[in-house]
């Protein structure tokens, strides 16, 4: 017996790689959901470690709301060129054009909720039986109880009351036809763990994660990037602010934080001393305490 336990980042990394390889071994048609955010960028890095020098046994899938930060799309395309893996894009615009969803109206209109439909359609079209995602249990209370292998019914729904027991590191990926499994390899990571890992591994990130000058408006007490996608009126005053983003989502619902963190070490210090959780910067979670739980039941990632 020895007393040398793994360093926490080594342990989290080894666990995530193990989970990715379980997906490869257990499923016929898995996919990795790639949002362009730091969590899914971390997943891609972990997949390189899990499968190189072989190819990924799954494509990357991006659900594109059409309301993206340009920097995210540039990053995505550069990354795909660099790693030489397959990318499938599901467009929310297609779901709107097909009449499957209706664009929200009003000041707080966002396509965030619409992407659930596009995601489910993309899963059905390609018959994906497992979708790997970058969700973490520390993000939100409802997520804290979700399994690493989380079974969804054919409507994409998560039933928190009927989750499978998940013991040791044995993941049961058996499903019926039409069902699929959402897999969360970095479930046990915290926001700070992700940042420290990015720093240790020297993983490049989209520039919007770092402090920059941007035209912003203040809405519901939060700073939003001014963009053609945001419904603005005379009450909205555009101000230049030094900001960065803690999450990367749809431009209409991802709030910025004022920041002078230009380098990764600055960000890590800022997060370590921050008193606002990451999801606190997502407007759509503020609706109600049970907002996330409701959306997850409906098939949201």
């Amino acid at each position, binding site marked *: 017996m020895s007393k040398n336990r793994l360093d926490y980042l080594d342990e989290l990394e080894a666990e995530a790689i193990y989970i990715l390889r*379980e997906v490869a071994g257990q499923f016929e048609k898995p996919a990795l959901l790639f949002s362009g955010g730091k969590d899914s960028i971390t997943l891609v890095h972990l997949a390189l470690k899990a499968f190189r020098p072989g190819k990924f046994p799954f494509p990357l899938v991006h659900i594109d709301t059409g309301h993206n930060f340009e920097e995210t799309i540039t990053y995505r395309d550069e990354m795909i060129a660099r790693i030489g893996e397959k990318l499938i894009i599901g467009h929310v615009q297609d779901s709107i054009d097909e009449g499957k969803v209706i664009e929200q109206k009003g000041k707080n209109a966002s396509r965030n909720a619409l992407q659930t439909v596009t995601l489910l359609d993309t899963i059905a079209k390609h018959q994906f039986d497992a979708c790997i995602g970058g969700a973490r249990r520390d993000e939100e*209370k409802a997520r804290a109880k979700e399994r690493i292998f989380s079974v969804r019914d054919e409507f994409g729904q998560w039933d928190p009351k009927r989750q499978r027991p998940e013991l040791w590191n044995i993941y049961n990926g058996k499903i019926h036809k039409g069902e699929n499994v959402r897999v969360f390899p970095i479930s046990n990571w915290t926001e700070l763990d992700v940042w420290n890992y990015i*720093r240790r591994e020297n993983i490049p990130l989209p520039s919007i994660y770092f402090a920059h000058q941007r035209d912003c408006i203040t809405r519901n007490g939060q700073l939003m990037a001014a963009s053609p996608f945001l419904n603005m009126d005379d009450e909205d005053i555009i101000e230049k602010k030094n900001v960065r983003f803690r999450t990367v989502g749809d431009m209409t619902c991802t709030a910025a934080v004022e920041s002078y963190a230009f380098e990764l070490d600055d960000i890590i210090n800022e997060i370590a001393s921050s008193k606002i959780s990451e999801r606190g910067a997502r407007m759509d979670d503020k609706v109600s305490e049970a907002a996330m739980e409701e959306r997850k039941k409906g098939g949201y990632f």
Partner: protein
Amino acid sequence: MQTKKHTPNPSQEGNHSLRENMDILKFITAGSVDDGKSTLIGRLLYDSEAILADQLEALHASNRKNDDGSIDLAILTDGLKAEREQGITIDVAYKYFETDKRKFIIADAPGHIQYTRNMVTGASNAGLAIILIDARKGVIEQTTRHSFLVSLLQIQQVVVAVNKMDMVDYSEDVFNKIVADYKVLAGKVGLQNVTYIPVSALKGDNIVYPSAKISWYTGDSLLTHLENVQLEVDDTSSHARLPVQWVVRPQTDELHDYRGYAGRVSSGSFHVNDKVTILPSGFSSSISKIEFYDKELAEAVAGTSVTVHLADNIDISRGDIIVNSAGQPQLSNLIEADLCWMDTRPMDTSLTYLVQHNTKTIRCKISEVLYKVNINTLEKDYEEDFKLNDIGRIVIKTAEPLAFDPYQLNKANGGAIIIDSRTNVTVGALMLRQAVD
């Protein structure tokens, strides 16, 4: 420039947030809502400043308060809506926090008997268990049950937190009586490494900070103990086990003959040139190379995910296990095991189930029920039926031999699950014990 590279800044190594060489302690809390379990976890998070402002805001805005008007810390851990409404923890919730010394993952599992399976689930990955005892009630039936489960799942370290000390005037005699009673129980269920701490989660005594009201107690507060307790890793070569998850075969021109076996070392350690045996086939070879992404390693220790290469060309696929030839596991298709049944449909000895052990999933039957255990009294019961939350000893027959170690000696290679092939649901947890001749 659209992307940004950064260079690590060694001058900030000592910074609070950039700490390295910290390990992770996963622990479970066993107790019921009446023992103040959720309050204890809430207090740990609150006093160690692991709660962020927007979460605090939601906490203060909630209309659930304690009788004295202070905020109810239990809300922090009750995740799902149904649970908030009923005021009980139904499922396992995972909570994360860290201090300067360690990172912690709490598996918060419910304590009532109808949620035994949830506690077994939470306990399966825990390195330490906190068993809560209400100072007014002492060692009761549920204490026996929780302690039995902690022992069954082989959790290395145990803390008995005697809670609600404020309700017994912080009495040393009350505490000592409970310690004496618990020692008898610990002997009975076979628990070692037990630490006893008097606390009040509600008042915050001895959770994070030592309490002047318990001056007769000279040991560490709960958090200080959690930060410093030593957990051991078995990294001896003789127990080296690598279940193969995936075979890496790039099949490109330049890597035409590349064949790497990818997996996570579940116990022990492997070195280059170690003699190894592949099970269940029984072929032997030696390790020619250990890789981790762009690095070559001389050694792979328990817990690391690696890719190994063998000196000989052997047919190996997912489900096989690579072991050190000098210390092989048992190989059998008839195995005595402890079973916890986790499904609302009772176990059926006439049915064929699936067993998943490491990366292998094969058909199985429960061929014999030896006995069940009344987990409140620890008495044996010779009924044949296994219902939800029942625990006992059985014999399992598998379609192919399993290469396993007794769970008591090697958790990683001794645990398995049973899957109902009609529903695909995980219906049982197996702690394998020994091959039956």
